[in-house]
């Protein structure tokens, strides 16, 4: 049985025609189910657990990447299958998973091609796509074995699992990020402050470190954006979760192409 977790923004008028088409297509494929409309502060985990107790096995997130990240942050490790129907103009997560936008995503859902994906754990929640840490004086410790720091001052850190690296250095963008390689990829970009205008400039090449466990410490709180969610941390513990996310994916996915 399918359960559809709706983004609260889908009530808006601009999404009504899209949602009508999506729901008609779900009916055509015979995969309609229970609809649960979330609120901005809803914790999806107890809702999903209640539905699992009632016999539901597939949970479909209907909304945008922020909704996707919000639900996954608490529920990614649950023993259920997740699907995604991206609604709107663009979705980096859907593009990476090979899922088209709006109604055509129902075709992918009905095909039910399920793959296990790596999940990251960050302090007290899960993340699927990417973590971006704004430049700050940071020290990064990998796998409790070695430590990395910028030679001259501050550095920005990006941890990629599903989405590729989008930093300034083009060479690092060629690095293939694979959500099934049993590791996370960290990209470190040292920055340099210019004296007069205080403009930050990324210097030279980004460093690339595959890892399974990492601790980032800063001398002062630094900004973290994890799957679209902003927070301030003084210490960040990131590791590859022991469990996998079961996800419905499409043929046009952007990884595993080698």
């Amino acid at each position, binding site marked *: 049985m399918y359960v559809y977790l709706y983004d609260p923004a889908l009530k808006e008028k601009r999404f009504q025609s899209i949602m009508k088409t999506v729901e008609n297509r779900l009916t055509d494929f015979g995969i309609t189910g229970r609809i649960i409309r979330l609120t901005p502060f809803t914790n999806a985990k107890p809702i999903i657990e209640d539905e699992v107790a009632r016999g539901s096995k597939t949970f479909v997130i209907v909304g945008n990447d922020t909704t996707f990240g919000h639900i996954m942050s608490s529920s990614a490790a649950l023993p259920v299958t997740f699907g995604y129907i991206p609604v709107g103009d663009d979705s980096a997560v859907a593009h990476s998973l090979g899922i088209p936008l709006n109604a055509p995503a129902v075709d992918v859902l009905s095909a039910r091609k399920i*793959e296990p994906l790596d999940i990251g754990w960050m302090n007290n929640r899960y993340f699927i796509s990417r973590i971006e840490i704004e430049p700050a004086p940071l020290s990064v410790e990998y796998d409790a*074995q*070695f*430590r*990395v*720091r*910028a*030679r*001259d001052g501050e*550095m920005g850190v990006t941890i990629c699992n599903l989405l590729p690296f989008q930093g300034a250095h083009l060479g*690092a963008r060629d*690095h*293939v990020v*694979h959500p*099934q*390689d*049993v590791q996370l990829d960290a990209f*470190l970009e*040292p920055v340099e402050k210019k004296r007069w205008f205080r403009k930050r400039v990324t*210097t*030279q*090449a*980004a*460093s*690339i*470190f*595959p890892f399974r466990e990492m601790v980032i410490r800063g001398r002062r709180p630094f900004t973290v954006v994890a799957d679209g969610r902003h927070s301030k941390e003084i210490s960040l513990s990131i590791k590859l979760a022991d469990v996998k996310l079961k996800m419905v*994916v499409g043929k046009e*996915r952007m990884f*595993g*192409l080698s």
Partner: protein
Amino acid sequence: MLYMPSLFSKSVEEIEHKNDSDSDQVDTVVGPSVVVEGDFVSHGNIVVKGVVSGNVKTSQHLLVEEGAKIMAHVKARSAKVAGEVRGNIKVKDTLELTATAKVLGDVECGTLIVAGGAGINGKCTTLAVDFSSLKETNKEDKKILGLRKKSKIELAGFEEQQPMASV
């Protein structure tokens, strides 16, 4: 029933134990503005452009670029060094030292390629070359050594009798 392997799925064993055709793929890059402290272990290829003050170990290829420094021991399947290594290097296959390479430590490898201008201050051992034949002295070698010793004595005697005229 026709078996169609998924294009997507790689087993954990396939990913962790990469074959030789993946040796061109760079897995870890230590950038030029970054310092690594502590023992650095990787299962893939490593490119060092910055400073590593700790042992470096990989089961694949290691590249130390010009201007990079490693201040401890290195162990890899193959390596190319264009920077500085202050420690022993142990490479299973080929070790290439470019013209800008400087190694302060012992080197042990299968095959050694040294460009003009490279510096090594330590013991060199190449495992791919068989030295056992050089260690044993057969009859013919002994004869040659004996003749050489004799000619040295004769020459010394000749010089005593006929001191060389100053030029």
